[in-house]
C-alpha cells in the first residue's frame, strides 16, 4: 500500500528514527573520549580501546560468550528446524497442541521465570544424579538452546508457510518419496531461513544477561554478566568502547544477513512462478 505520506507521518518517522539512533551515536562518540569521566569531554582518543584489549577478564568473558553462542546457535537451529517441520508439514499428531504451546511459550515467558526454573532444575538434577557438578558453560548453553530454539522455530515456520508447497507437490507428482522431497526440495529452499535463524540464536545468546546470571556458577562470567556487574555502579569509558565494538560487529552481520535474505526472496519468486506455470 504505497501512497502519499502526510507531513505528520514524516515528522513521526523522523522523531522515531532519532529516538532509536541518537543514544547509540552518543554512546559511540563518548567511547573516543580521553577523559576518565565518560560525560566530561577530554578530547579524542582511543585510550579506552587499548585498556579493553589489555584486560584479561574481558577476553575470558568474550571467549566464554562466543563459545556458548556458537554451540547454542548450531543446536538451536537444528532443534528449531525439526520443530518447525513438525508443526507446519506433518499435519496432526498426538500432543501437537502441547508441543506448539511449549514452542511459543519461551518467546513470551519473562526471563526471570525461565532462569529461575532452569536453575532449580539443574540443582535438583545434581542432587539426584550428581550432574551438573559446576554450573557454567554446559548449563548456560542448555538454557540458551531452550529459549532460542523457539525463536528459530518461529522464523523457519514463517518461511515454510511463506514458500508454499507447490514445488514440493510438483516433486511428489514426479515420483519423489517424502524423505527425498524433504532433502532435495524443502531443505535447500530453507537455507536462508536457517542462516537467519542461526544468526538470531547467536545474537540472542550473546545478548542474554538474566537467564545466564541464574544458571551460571561463581567464576563463570559471560560478556553480558561482566558488563552488567561493571555498569551497575555507573558509567565506564571502557564499557563504551566495548559497546561500540559489539554494535559495529552486529550491524555488519545483520546487513549481510539482510542481503542474503533479499536475494533469496527474488530467486524464490522466480522458482515459484516456474513451478506454478508447469502445473
Amino acid at each position, binding site marked *: 500500500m504505497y501512497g502519499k505520506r502526510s507531513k505528520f507521518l514524516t515528522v513521526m518517522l523522523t522523531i522515531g528514527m532519532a529516538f532509536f539512533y541518537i543514544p547509540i551515536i552518543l554512546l559511540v562518540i563518548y567511547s573516543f573520549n580521553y577523559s576518565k569521566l565518560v560525560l566530561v569531554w577530554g578530547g579524542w582518543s582511543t585510550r579506552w580501546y587499548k585498556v579493553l584489549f589489555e584486560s584479561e577478564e574481558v577476553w575470558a568473558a568474550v571467549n566464554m560468550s562466543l563459545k556458548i553462542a556458537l554451540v547454542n546457535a548450531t543446536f538451536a537451529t537444528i532443534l528449531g528446524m525439526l520443530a518447525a517441520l513438525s508443526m507446519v508439514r506433518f499435519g496432526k499428531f498426538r500432543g501437537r497442541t502441547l508441543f506448539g504451546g511449549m514452542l511459543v511459550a519461551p518467546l513470551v515467558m519473562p526471563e526471570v521465570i525461565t532462569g529461575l526454573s532452569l536453575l*532449580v532444575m539443574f540443582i535438583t538434577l545434581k542432587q539426584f544424579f550428581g550432574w551438573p557438578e559446576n554450573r557454567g558453560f554446559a548449563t548456560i548453553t542448555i538454557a540458551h538452546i531452550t529459549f532460542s530454539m523457539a525463536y528459530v522455530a518461529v522464523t523457519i515456520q514463517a518461511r515454510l508457510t511463506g514458500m508454499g508447497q507447490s514445488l514440493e507437490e510438483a516433486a511428489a507428482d514426479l515420483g519423489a518419496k517424502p524423505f527425498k522431497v524433504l532433502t532435495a526440495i524443502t531443505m535447500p529452499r530453507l537455507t536462508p531461513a536457517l542462516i537467519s535463524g542461526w544468526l538470531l540464536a547467536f545474537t540472542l545468546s550473546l545478548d542474554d544477561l538474566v537467564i545466564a546470571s541464574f544458571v551460571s556458577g561463581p567464576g563463570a562470567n559471560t560478556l553480558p554478566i561482566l558488563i552488567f556487574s561493571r555498569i551497575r555502579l555507573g558509567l565506564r569509558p571502557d564499557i563504551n568502547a566495548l559497546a561500540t565494538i559489539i554494535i559495529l560487529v552486529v550491524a555488519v552481520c545483520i546487513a549481510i544477513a539482510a542481503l542474503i535474505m533479499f536475494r533469496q526472496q527474488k530467486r524464490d519468486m522466480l522458482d515459484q512462478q516456474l513451478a506454478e506455470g508447469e502445473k
Partner: protein
Amino acid sequence: MNIGMKNDISMKVKNQNSIVDRFLRRLQENWRSIVIIIPFVWLLMFFLFPFFIVAKISLAEIKIASPPFTSMVEWADGGIMTIRIVFDNFLYIINDSLYINTYLNSVKIASTATVISLLLGYPIAYGIVRSGPIAKPILLFMVILPFWTSFLLRVYAWMGLLADQGTINSLLIALGFINEPIQMLYSEFAVYIGIVYTYLPFMILPLYANMEKLDSSLNEAAADLGSKPTNTFFKVTLPLTMPGVIAGSLLVFIPASGEYVIPDLLGGGNVQMIGRVLFNEFSRNTDWPVASAVAIAMLFLLVFPIIIFQHYQGKAAEGN
C-alpha cells in the same frame, strides 16, 4: 525334549529379530516421528519439567540445607509415605504489602509504557507503510537493527543521556531552560524511557505487517463518499489494524511487566518491579520457596495475556 527346547529358543531369537526388524522398518517409515520426538523431548525436559519443580518448591518450607527447602515426599519409619504441602509462601506474599504493591506497580508501569509505545509506534509503522519502494526497506531495516543490537548496551546508552551531568541535562542548561540538573536517572521516568526504547520495535513490526496487507481502495472509497481523513482513520483504518495493535501491545506488555534489567539500571532502588524483586529474593535472601511462589504468582498474572497472544498467533498462522 532337547530338540523341542532348541526350537523354542530359536523361535524366541527369531521373534526378537523380527521385533528389531520391525522396529527398524517402522523407523524408516516413521522418520517423521523422530523429527517430532527430538525437539519435543528437549522442551519437556528443559521447559516443562523445570516449572513443575518450581511449583513443587513453592509449596515447601524453607530449611537450612542445600537445597534450602523441605522435600514434599518423606518416608517415615516403616515405609509410610507422607506428603507435605504448605501454602504459607502464598499467604506470605498475599499478606505482605511489599509484594502486592510491587505487583500493582509492575502492571501500572508495563501498561503505561505499552500505551506510550502504541501512540509512538502506530504512526511510525503507518509512515513506513506509506513510504516509497526505496525508503521502505531502508526504514524497516532501521527499525529491525536496534532490535538485534545488545539490549543491555542500549539501556546503558540511556544512562549517559539521563545522568545528572548527562547529555540531556547539559543541553537544557546550555540552552538556558534550567539552572540545575533535573534528576532523571534512577526514577520512574527513566524506567518508562527504557521500556519504550527497548520494546518499540516489538510494537512497530507487527503493526507494519498488519498495515502492509490493508487494501488502500477502502480508504479511497471512504474519501469518495465524503469521509474526512480523521473519520476514515477511526472508522476504517483503525478497526482493520486491531490485530496488529493487539499483537504489538502484548509483545510489549508481557516482557515489560517481568523486566529486571531496566528497573535495576535506570530505576536504581527507587522503582520496584516484580522481576527485580524475584531476582533479588533469589540471589540475596536465598528464600527459594518464597521466590518460587512469587514466580508462580507472576505466571498467573501473565497467563491471560499469553493465552490471548497465542490465540491471535494461531489465527494469524491459519490466515496465511
